[in-house]
């Protein structure tokens, strides 16, 4: 299940967006990405690399003091782009959004490796930098209707999946799980719960007299 489209927080960024991406370029990038996915086109990938690598490099250099780490981010991201291009769906969003999402996850993995030394992994620094790159792109593809449809779909998911999509793992057993845990039939659990709650209601009524 896909989480709802993330729009990154606006905050002061330290990187100026020198590259305004227009519609034609979006289409071109999409085509290249699709070519990589469909026929493993090396030429298309080279174009993608030429386009993205410097941008990723710049973002990574802002996040990692170490040049080697920044290079690793570029390497890892573009490798993943090559390997997972088939997961890109041109109908669902921009190629830039997709690639930067891959990059974000790569950065996360790398940060996690050094996380014990850094309390500020989750600082504002990561997101505004990326957001500045994405702002113009996102405006082209924002679709309120799509979001509403998505929300309706979420409502129809089984509850456990709903919770995961909405933002948390339910910290509560289901009646089924309770039954399994206590090694009792579900019916017994249901009546126990019913009785316990009824008793509680009476108790609380008494307490409030």
């Amino acid at each position: 299940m896909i989480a709802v489209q993330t729009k990154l927080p606006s905050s002061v960024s330290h990187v100026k967006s020198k590259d305004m991406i227009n519609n034609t370029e979006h289409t071109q990038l999409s085509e290249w990405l699709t070519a990589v996915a469909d026929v493993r086109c090396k030429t298309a990938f080279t174009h993608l690399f030429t386009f993205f690598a410097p941008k990723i490099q710049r973002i990574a250099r802002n996040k990692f003091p170490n040049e080697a780490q920044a290079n690793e981010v570029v390497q890892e991201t573009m490798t993943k782009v090559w390997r997972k291009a088939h997961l890109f769906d041109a109908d669902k969003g921009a190629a830039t959004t997709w690639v930067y999402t891959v990059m974000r996850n790569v950065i996360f993995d790398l940060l996690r490796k050094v996380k014990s030394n850094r309390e500020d992994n989750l600082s504002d620094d990561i997101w505004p930098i990326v957001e500045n790159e994405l702002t113009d792109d996102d405006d082209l593809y924002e679709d309120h209707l799509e979001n509403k449809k998505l929300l309706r779909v979420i409502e129809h998911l089984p509850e456990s999946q709903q919770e995961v999509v909405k933002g948390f793992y339910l910290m509560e057993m289901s009646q089924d799980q309770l039954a399994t845990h206590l090694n009792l039939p579900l019916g017994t659990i249901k009546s126990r719960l019913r009785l316990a709650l009824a008793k509680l209601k009476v108790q609380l009524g008494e307490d409030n007299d």
Partner: protein
Amino acid sequence: MKNNTIDLPIFPISIFLLPGGVARLRIFEPRYLKLVSMATSGNGFVIYAKDQDPQQLKSWGSWVDIINFDKGEDGVLEIDVKCKSLVEISDVNLRDHDLDFAEVRAFTHWSQKRVFTHRSQKSARSQKSADTNLSTLNTSLSLLITNNALLNKLYESKTDDNPYWIIARWIELLPIPLQVKNNFIFESSYSDAKKLVNSIISNSL
């Protein structure tokens, strides 16, 4: 004693957490990514369960600290939070697209109590039966936590001799309506909570 209020960001989500309780949240909305970055350098944040009794005079929330973070399988940020206190929220006004703050005041809850071995007051027999119930609840709870992948990760210690801790965790975990769980927040409700848990888990009073 000063009326100590503190300004904290609010995370509206229907999850019931008492002091000592740990939960894992997935953060992808930008306003909550911001909340997380504020919380890590500041004072944590408040989880506010929206479906509280509208009749209630005061809303309450769970004041949590972020104790761990990771990336979920789908690339979304997951944070582990631990509740350190409950708070009263006097004025909740949730906006749709922005991050909300509220002035909150911490209050103590029975789950934060410590127990002292003070057996002289109870009769030997009633003490024994209380102990049996408690040890049943304790064992059952630690088994549950150990056997559930997520709970096992969240709770380093699967057990605690403190009966208040045990009952608190059970109330969080049991499949009873949030409205019912709300009853164990404000009043001196420990004994009611204990009776409820015992009648479900131990099938006894």
